[in-house]
Each structure stands twice: as structure tokens, then as C-alpha cells.
């Protein structure tokens, strides 16, 4: 994966661009040069020996009015059932147990239900109109019902991949092909992070009830062909998030600093010889690790969180690996300037025993999800934090024994903050919840990515990386910004 790139590819591009503009109009060029140096302080400094670990992002000025500054992605891995959570279908309940109309399914790709007799399966759970907006939310999510006016439920999601791993890849990177950067990596590449003391892209994992758990591979937060300094860093959900972050006995911080400076100097020679950008990544990692020696203990010191906050999230024991604990850590990461925070919660793959297992997994995430929104809101952070809640696909309106199979033609997720209008239900599905309706509010994963980037002020068609002779984007050649979602 680490193909030799042009040594300082980005830096050179900035230089070339500044020079060209400078010849055009001196006043404008001065601004452009300044912008260039805003993005890369070394541009004007003339290459200082000390490597600057801060990546300023390549995007410069935003193309749209920026709203969001960070993302918290509550990733419900496994495929939550939209039909039981956010998309009530009375018609499906009515034909429960009857053969599913073949006009919907003929010629369609199914996962495990292929070549079986298809029976409609209604939802056994009630829905309630919530808040002033009257959004319909399942009674399985009583806490989420209370934040109905803050969230925008998207019912018209659809994807292209029907099995977990490729579907995760599609949701993260907009492609099932290996080696593509995930959206967190794209954001870091485009904007950099606000903090130098923590990774800009952090991943935390929590588990569902036993059963219904599919593994999530580390490639989901890979930087793909982007320099690997932009990849997600998985923190441990239990105990210390990062192992071996303390100093060994007898080594103090100043000694540590000297060691790292010396290593950086030696690595600098190596970089001059080989022109390998991964040396830069290595330097940045040393620097980051050094800073994390103080920032990580501070991050996990949850003792400063009052009991009322812990109660609101439903945290039983700090750092116990629960989704609730992870949500609290996510908020603390967001406060510290981490750009992209992804909390995977495994256990949404209810092929069977749905009525019991779905209830259990909802119970595990509902309170903390709503608490995160409430907490961000009272801190004034929801306005510039984009929260995404959802999985990689939905579940079939056809029953699979006591559960539902994977479904790609329709699923629901919700977004909140980052300039997204709360209390809005966006898009719809047909009367059986089988397929999204093409009404201009339909939302492909590419559209979701384009919309997410737009909330950062980025035109998804402008965030480009050239690799192996081709220009790549998160949205490839697709993507449509759902402008109506923004307030």
C-alpha cells in the first residue's frame, strides 16, 4: 500500500499554486501565499529542521459556509431494522405472515433469503409521535424519542453492498474495494485536526448482547492510499485507551523529549535520502505518542464528570467498555478537538430472535445516544458537531424465521447537529418499506458522504487525491448534497 509518492506532494502543489497566483495578481497572491502558509507554516519558514506534526489540511478556504467542525459517528454495526425503529409500515403489519408481493422482490438480490419462500413480517413494536415535530420513533428507543426535535431521521438510505464487511467498507469509504480511505481519513486529509495532542480520528468499539455480533475489521478506519497518518486509531474501550503510554521507570519527560528529537533528526536524514512520505508519518507518530503521554490520562480521567452526567449517559462503571462509557469518552474527545470519532456498537444483526435481541441492543445504546445529544446541546457543541447514528444497511420486510435478513434498498439513520435541521423526517420508502422512494430526498451512501462534507464547507467534488494516475474522491463520481437538510 505504501507506494512511493512524490516526496512532498502536497507541499509542492501548494508552492506551485502560490507561485502561479503570485504572478497573476500580486495582492491576491499575497493572500494566497498567506493562505498557503496558514495551511502549512513551513511554507514561509523555509523548511525548519523540527518536523511540525500538525497537518493543516489541504482544503484551504471552504467552498460552502462551514457549519460542522467534527463528526461523532455512532455506528450501529450489523444492520439495525429500520422497520422496527424509524420507519413504521402499517401495510406491512396488515399483511404479516402472508406471502410477500413478488412484484417487489422478483429479480432482486437477497442475502440469506435467496430462493426461499418470502413471507411478510410486520413489526411487533409500537411507534409514537414524538416532540413538537411529531417524528415517528419506535417505543424500543424511549430516550431517543425525547430528542426527536433535535434529530433528522433519514428514511430513504440505500447502499450497494449486502454483506457486512463490504457494506461497512461502502459506508466508510464509498467503495467495497480494499485500499480506499475511510471518510474520517478524508476529513483529516482535507481539514486536519484541531488538536495535536490526540489522533484526529479515533475509533472505539463496544459489544452487543451475545449473538448477532459480526466482527468489524480494522480496514474500516484505514487511510487506504492516503498517507497513513490519516488513519483511524482504535482506543481500548476498557482500562487505559492506549497501552504503554506511561514512561518506564527512571525515564522522565525531558529525557523522553530528547530521545524523540534525536530520533526525528535521524529520521530526517532518512527522509532526505529516500523521499518516502511514510517517514513523515513516522515522525508525526513519535510526536503524537509523546503528547499522548499527558493527553490520554487527562482524557480518561472521568472523575471530573459529575455524577449527574454519568447518570444521564447511564454509565455504570467508567471505562467498562460499554457503549455508554464510550459515548462519554466521545464527548470528551470532541471537546479536545478530535475531528472524527467513530463508536462501533456490534450486535444489530438480528437474523433470528429479533423481538428479544433487538430490544436488548436498543436498551444498550438508546439512553447514551440521547444523552450524548443532550449533553452536546447544553454545552453549545451540537451546533458544530455532526452526529450520525446508523448502520451499514437495513433489514428485510420479509421474515427470516424469527428475524430479518440484510437489506440494501432501504434503511434509516439519523443525523443531528452540524447545521442539520432537527425534527425533520427526510425521504421515504414504499408502503412495505422495501425500497426508497425517488422523490429527490432519496439518499444513497454517496449522497450521505457529499452532505457530510458539505456541512464542513467542503465541496465533495473538490476533495481529491491522485493515486495511481487517477483522481479519487470519497464520493467517486457520484454524490448529491441534500441541501434541504441544512437549516
Amino acid at each position, binding site marked *: 500500500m505504501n507506494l512511493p509518492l512524490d516526496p512532498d506532494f502536497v507541499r509542492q502543489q501548494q508552492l506551485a499554486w502560490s507561485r502561479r497566483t503570485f504572478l497573476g495578481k500580486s495582492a491576491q497572491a499575497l493572500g494566497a*501565499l*498567506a493562505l498557503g*502558509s496558514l495551511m502549512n*507554516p513551513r511554507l514561509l519558514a523555509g523548511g525548519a529542521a523540527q518536523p511540525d506534526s500538525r497537518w493543516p489540511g489541504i482544503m*484551504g*478556504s471552504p467552498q460552502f459556509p462551514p457549519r460542522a467542525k467534527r463528526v461523532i459517528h455512532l455506528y450501529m454495526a450489523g444492520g439495525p431494522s429500520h422497520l422496527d425503529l424509524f420507519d413504521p409500515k402499517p401495510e406491512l403489519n396488515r399483511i404479516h405472515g402472508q406471502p410477500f408481493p413478488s412484484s417487489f422482490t422478483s429479480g432482486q438480490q437477497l442475502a440469506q433469503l435467496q430462493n426461499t419462500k418470502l413471507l411478510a413480517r410486520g413489526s411487533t413494536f409500537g411507534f409514537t409521535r414524538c416532540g413538537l415535530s411529531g417524528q415517528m420513533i419506535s417505543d424500543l428507543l424511549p430516550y431517543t424519542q425525547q430528542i426527536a426535535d433535535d434529530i433528522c431521521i433519514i428514511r430513504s438510505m440505500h447502499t450497494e453492498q449486502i454483506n457486512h464487511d463490504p457494506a461497512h467498507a461502502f459506508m466508510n469509504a464509498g467503495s467495497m474495494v480494499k485500499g480506499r480511505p475511510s471518510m474520517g481519513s478524508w476529513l483529516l486529509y482535507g481539514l486536519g485536526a484541531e488538536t495535536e495532542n490526540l489522533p484526529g480520528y479515533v475509533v472505539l468499539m463496544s459489544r452487543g448482547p451475545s449473538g448477532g455480533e459480526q466482527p468489524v475489521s480494522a480496514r474500516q478506519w484505514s487511510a487506504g492510499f492516503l498517507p497513513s497518518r490519516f488513519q483511524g486509531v482504535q482506543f481500548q474501550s476498557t482500562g487505559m485507551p492506549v497501552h504503554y503510554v506511561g514512561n518506564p521507570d527512571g525515564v522522565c519527560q525531558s529525557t523522553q523529549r530528547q530521545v524523540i528529537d534525536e530520533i526525528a533528526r535521524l529520521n530526517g536524514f532518512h527522509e532526505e535520502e529516500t523521499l518516502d512520505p511514510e517517514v513523515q508519518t513516522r515522525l508525526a507518530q513519535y510526536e503524537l505518542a509523546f503528547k499522548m503521554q499527558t493527553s490520554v490520562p487527562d482524557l480518561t480521567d472521568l472523575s471530573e464528570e459529575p455524577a449527574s452526567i454519568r447518570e444521564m449517559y447511564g454509565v455504570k462503571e467508567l471505562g467498562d467498555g460499554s457503549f455508554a462509557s464510550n459515548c462519554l469518552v466521545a464527548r470528551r474527545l470532541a471537546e479536545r478537538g478530535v475531528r472524527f470519532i467513530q463508536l462501533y456498537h456490534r450486535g444489530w444483526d438480528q437474523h433470528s430472535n429479533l423481538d428479544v435481541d433487538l430490544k436488548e441492543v436498543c436498551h444498550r445504546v438508546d439512553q447514551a445516544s440521547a444523552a450524548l445529544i443532550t449533553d452536546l446541546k*447544553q454545552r453549545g457543541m451540537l451546533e458544530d458537531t455532526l452526529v450520525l447514528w446508523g448502520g451499514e444497511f437495513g433489514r428485510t420486510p420479509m421474515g427470516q424465521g424469527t428475524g430479518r435478513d440484510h437489506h440494501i434498498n432501504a434503511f434509516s439513520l439519523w443525523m443531528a447537529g452540524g447545521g442539520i435541521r432537527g425534527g425533520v423526517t427526510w425521504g421515504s420508502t414504499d408502503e412495505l418499506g422495501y425500497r426508497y422512494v425517488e422523490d429527490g430526498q432519496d439518499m444513497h451512501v454517496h449522497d450521505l458522504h457529499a452532505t457530510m462534507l458539505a456541512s464542513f464547507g467542503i465541496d465533495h467534488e473538490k476533495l481529491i487525491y491522485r493515486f495511481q494516475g487517477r483522481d479519487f474522491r470519497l464520493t467517486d463520481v457520484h454524490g448529491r448534497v441534500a441541501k434541504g437538510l441544512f437549516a
Partner: protein
Amino acid sequence: MRDLPAYLGHFHPLWVHLPIGIFILLGTLEVAGLLRRIRVFSGMPALSPGLRTLILSIGAGVAVLAALLGWLLAHSGDYDPAVVRTHQWLGIASAAAALLLLAVHRVRWLYAPCLAGFLVLLTLAGHAGGKISHGNDYLTARMPLDLRRAFGVPVPVVRPPPTDTDHAIAYRDVIQPVLDERCTSCHGASKSNGGLRLDSWDALAKGGKDGPVLNLANLSASELLRRVDLPQEEKGHMPPLGKPQLADDDLTLLEWWMSAGASPDKAVAVLGAPALVGEILDTRIGGKAPERPPYRGATLVHSARIAAKLGILIRSMSPDGPWIDVNARPLGKEFGDAQLAQLAQIAPAIAWLDLGGTSVTDEGLGPVEAMHWLQRLHLDGTKISDKGLERLAHLRRIEYLNLRGTAVTDNGLLALHSMSRLRSIYVWQTAVTPEAVNALGEAVIDRRRIARWKADKEDLERRIEEEHFDGNTGGSLRLDAAQPTAAVPPK
């Protein structure tokens, strides 16, 4: 064809410049001919008698036509006959004089003085016409004071411009200018439709021939307000459809002034202005003209230097504007008043400022005071108190203010009542009460304007409803012979 005279009459202002040009050119050529007698000008061309006759003939012809068109315009009903009388007779005299000139131009001794006199007459007629179109004092309105004194032009009574909003006299400094701008062209000295003049307080208080326009007993029921608030297409709406309308801000000011008692001489501070009115007053009175946005190039140069020096994050916020987003939060307590002071140079360009968790204090807020374009301000977790908020009260563009976990109280929020664009405030973990927050909301949201928008919306919806078209090419009730002639159609 009834409109034909008026239609032709409207060509008068265009056509009238033609004879003026022709005769001035003729005069110039004649002077050139005279100058030939002096040696240095001997190369000047002379006007041949034939050419002179031709020019005079064309000139007299177009002059007569201009006078004719002028006559049609004067009687088209668009002008008050009293106002145009002088110009009318001067114009007709000019046309007659042009014919006379044509008749006598072969008599050498008579021609020169006649031409000179005619040009004077023409100038006077033209000037009288200009006064109708542009106003009596058009030429001298902008005359510098020194020139006025030198030429004996009366020096106008200049009212001292109010230095600040609080001391401005509401009627004199904002209300009358609105009336002057939009109303007095029809309700003024030269034209007073309905017997109503709105060019002075006395006239305003007196009303028109149909009664008073100010109902001093119940100001909100005043005819003046009713007329301007009527839907545009309603009969009686003022200004009439097609004329420049009162702006939203004009209406807000007018309503505020009326509700405050329609006083002719009270100062703004005495009347008390809510946030939105205060903002409009500031821009109108000019004491605090909207601050000019800074330059992008210079801002980015300074930003780069400051960001590198302080280790803070500065981001450009738009592809072409100078606005920047400054984030000092990552520095935490290391960022204090001394560091904040270094932002002074880029202060006017800062749109978003995050000072959350830093060690800035009330005393160090000086640079923030100069951030006139600030929209978002994070002060959460700082030592800012009510005193600091008072220093920020004039930042009227702020939309988002985060004060979580600070020492601010209800008193501090009172200072924010002037932030008319404030839409979110965060005061969790402070001593601020919900009542104070609600009061702030009431102060910054202008309910009356919302009510007006609602009325406008209803009006628009009604108009959308009304925009339908029924095409009817005839119908028939003929029953088909095959169908049973049942009184009730079968279901």
C-alpha cells in the same frame, strides 16, 4: 387613442435637447466666424449663408416640435399646471423666437443681437424645465459652502448630524428623512395630493383634507400606519403600487416611533429603542456606520503570522471573503489576555472566535470589542463575568454565544438585549435563570416584524389562490339518447 397626446408628450424631455444642441452649436460657429478677423484664428472656418439658413431652418423646426410636445406633456395630467407655467411660456416663446430668428437672419445687423438674445431665452427655458424634473435647488444643492458665500447663494440651514444614536431626535433624524424619501414627492410643497403634506411636523399633525393622519389619542389606529400596512394591491395602499415602497426597516422605524408616542422632538434614548430598532437607527444615523469589512489578502498574511506565533488555529471561512475562524481552545489556559491582545490586527475579520477554556478575563476583552463582524463567540469555561458582557453589548452581529460555566448572571444578560441577531445562547452551569433567558429572547426577536411577515405571507397566499384561469369553450347538457333519463345518475 385617448392616450396618444400623453404618449407623445412623454417624448418632450428627450426631444427638447435637440434644438438646444443645434442652437448652441450655431452660436459657437458664429463666434468662430467672428474670431477669424483676429490673425491667430484666421484658420477658423466661416459659416456660409446657405449653411446658416439650413441650420436655422432645422433648429426652428425641431424647436417648434419640442414646444408642441411640451404642450402635450403639460396637459397630460402628470404635472401641476402651476408648476410648469413658467417653463411652458418660456418654451413657447423660445419656439416663436426661433421662427423669428429664421425670418430675420439675412438682416446682418439684426441677426447677431437676436441670436444672442435668443440663446439667453433658450437657456432660461431649459433651466426652468430642469427645475421641474430635478427640483428647484438642483444646481446648487451640492454647492460647496465657500462657493455659496462667494456667489451669494443662501447657505442652507445645516442641522448638525447627530453624533450618536442616543442623542438623535427620532422624528427629525430618522422619521422625516423616511417621509422625504418616499412620501413628499406627492405630499409636499410642489404637489400635495389629498391636501396632505408630509414635509414638516406641523403639516403631518394637521393631516389632509379627509382628516388627520395621526390619531394622537390612539396612535396605532392612525391612518398613516393603516395606509402603509395595507397590502400593496389594496386600494389606498401608500405609496401607490409602482412607486418606490417603504422598506421593511422603514416600517419598523415608523411603527416604533408611533408606538413610542409619535413625539416631534424626543431623543432616541428618551423614547427607548428595542434591539432591532437600535440596529437600524445605528446604520441610518451614521454615528456607527456599518463597519467596512477588512481586506482578504492582508488578513490572511497577518493570520498566518499570528497563527504560527501563538500556535492557535486560524482558518479562512470563505473562498473570497476575508472572514476567518480563530480557535484558541486547544491552547487552553496557556492562552490569556496577552495572547488575545495579539489578535488586534485581525480582529475586524474574525467571524468565529473560540476562547473556550482559555484564561482570558474581562480586562483583556479589548480586541474582542473591535470584532464588529463576529458571529460566533465561545467564552465557556473562562473567567468572563457580567462586566465583560457589557463590553461586548455593541457586537450586534453575534448569533451564537457560549457562556457555559462562567460567572455571568441575569444582570449580565441585560447587556445582551441589544444583540438583535443573537439566536443561541448557552448558559448551562451559570447563575442565569430561565426567566432572564426568556426575557433576552423577547428582546432580540421582533414580534411585530414577524406579525407583519405573517400578514404578508397570508396576503401572498391569497394572491396565489386568486391567480387562476378558467377557460370555457362552451358546455352542453344534452343527454345521450341511449341513456335512461333517470333523475339520479346511477352510482
